[in-house]
């Protein structure tokens, strides 16, 4: 087990090095430097700059240093915990990223707190009696909610609850400090989109368990159905959903981009999009770093959890 985790971590480090190298390579092109300049100085400002002035500007920003030196310096800095400075906001990337991650963390916490019970209950109820009317209805709801893209869910919820009924604010910029009412619509959007997928996976796992011999034995020996489900079926049926729920963490990091942009919520996704559009390389690098670490860690957690929950699985 320890070897497995270690191998994964080494692989993660390799992936980070390759990925950040590629990003540096992309952002080092002349076109991208120009883009950063235009984003900062404005299109007119850049076109009126003479070539010498432009070179001076690049020098000031530290963009004229050869690519491999910048990359080497960045790697060294990251190893000591310094993530560089943001061109756009001219602050250190570390605290900025931490602040945004905290906001996205709050969002993610509530999404999981609602999504897990909802999807597990739906999945178990649907998979309990495969092919019944109850199963068909719940499965259809699950497919239906997953089919509506987040942007459409966000729109429908905003139109109904914010513009129509006026119960909740339409935007979640949190200008006047933290306000839970502004959190409701983004959380609901993400839950509605994501719960269907987990519910369907739970249903499949539950349906499979229900066809196994020991369940048939339990039913045949006259145990009450509720007892069979709770005491016998659930234990095995909930193993597979566990891994899927952990992996949703990875999905959430890309899922939040559109939701945060639509609701103007200041989180990780919005930061990433803005930085990428601005050409703010150190912020993009830091965001990617975080994303890759979260992706690999969630994979490790799901693998390790799976072996603990299901002793029949052993890693070679």
């Amino acid at each position, binding site marked *: 087990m320890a070897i497995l985790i270690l191998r994964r971590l080494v*692989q*993660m480090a*390799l*992936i980070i090095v*390759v*990925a950040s190298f590629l*990003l540096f390579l*992309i952002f080092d*092109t002349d076109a*991208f430097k120009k883009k950063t300049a235009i984003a900062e100085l404005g299109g007119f400002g850049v076109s009126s700059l003479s070539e010498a002035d432009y070179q001076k500007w690049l020098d000031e920003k530290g963009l004229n240093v050869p690519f491999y030196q910048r990359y080497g310096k960045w790697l060294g800095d990251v190893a000591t915990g310094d993530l560089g400075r943001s061109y756009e906001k001219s602050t250190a990337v570390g605290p900025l990223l931490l602040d945004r991650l905290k906001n996205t963390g709050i969002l993610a916490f509530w999404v999981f707190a609602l999504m897990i019970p909802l999807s597990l209950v739906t999945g178990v109820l649907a998979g309990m009696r495969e092919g019944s009317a109850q199963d068909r209805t719940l499965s259809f709801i699950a*497919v*239906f909610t*997953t*089919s*509506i*893209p*987040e*942007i*459409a869910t966000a*729109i*429908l919820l*905003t*139109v109904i609850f914010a*513009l*129509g009924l006026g119960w909740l604010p*339409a935007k979640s910029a949190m200008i006047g400090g933290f306000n839970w009412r502004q959190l409701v619509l983004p959380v609901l959007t993400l839950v509605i989109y994501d719960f269907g997928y987990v519910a369907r996976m739970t249903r499949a796992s539950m349906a499979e368990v229900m066809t196994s011999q020991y369940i048939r034995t339990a039913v045949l020996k006259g145990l009450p159905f509720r007892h069979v489900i709770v005491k016998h079926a659930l234990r095995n049926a909930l193993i597979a959903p566990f891994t899927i729920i952990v992996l949703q963490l*990875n*999905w959430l*990091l*890309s*899922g939040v*981009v*559109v939701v945060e*942009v*639509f609701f103007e919520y200041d989180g990780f*996704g919005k930061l*990433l*999009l803005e930085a*990428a*559009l601005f*050409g703010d390389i150190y912020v*993009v690098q830091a*965001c*990617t770093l975080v*994303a*890759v670490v979260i*992706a*690999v860690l969630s994979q490790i957690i799901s693998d390790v959890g799976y072996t603990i929950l299901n002793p029949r699985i052993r890693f070679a």
Partner: protein
Amino acid sequence: MATTFDARPAAPPLLDRLSAPKAVLILVALMWVPLTLYVMAGRNLGVLQPYILLPAIPATLILYVLAVRAWRESWTAVIGATLVFFWLLMAVSAPYLPLLDPNKPIAPFVLPFSHGKVGDTFFWLGTDFKGRDMLSRTVWGCQRVIVWGVTATVVAYVVGTLFGLIAGYLSGWWDELITFFGNVLLSFPVMVLFIVVLNYLGPSGFNIVIAVTFASAPAIMRIVRGLTLDIKSRDYVFAAQTRGERPFYIMIFELLPNVRGPIIVDACLRLGYTTVAITTLTFLGLGLQPPDPDWGLMIKEAAKTAMLFRFSYMLIIPALSVSTLILGFNLMADGLREISLRD
């Protein structure tokens, strides 16, 4: 999709003959090639442009009849196919429908089902903030989503399947290398990958194809690799090896047809994802560009100008359109899986 062609002495009915794989392929080509040319080449087609989509309309209708006939056992698949083919039909027939020009401003902020203040044009779905007809923009908007979505998915599949076959069949160093790069790409969250690739290449339809390929091909590669590993020890593969066939021949003619089944279902689901991705990217400003109508663009523009309940139709109409198309793909995938499990 392909029902078996049985060669009885009496000629089989027309629908059976059309259901033969070759006929279906020709019909698909008749529908798809003009539509793709129309959207991608557009104004470069010259005199052909007004007529090129005409053969696609009957082809689409016949394909719909064939699909319903082949999948009649599964209601889910039929409903899904109906939704998808509705939008396909809209896409191929948009130039011939009696619609207003989708890019021409007429009268801004006219509510649905009303005449507006000027003239006597009746607006079924109202007009947007620039005064362009919503009905016509919605119908025209599906062309680009469908064409780019399907093209991107197909390209991702070709790349992913090829690498999957190579990794699975050749194993060894090829496998290690391909799997490692697959893992590198898979460990990026999809959105990060999209944003970086599109930001680098610049927003356009062709670049969306590239971005989707980067994001989807590794996952497809994994599926195909797994399936290949499973079937490569079958007797027919050994037979081909003994005959002295080249690895490339074995991959394409022996392995590929046998991994087809699960891939088709996955492709339907992935079509849905790609459609979501294109709409979302366009909304974020990284996808298709104005002024031509597109659902993502309609949402993007309306989200800035129409945040009032009275004008929320500008947001709801494109949102519902894209949802029905994706629901169609997903139901089709569900139905196909049901059918394939039954056999």
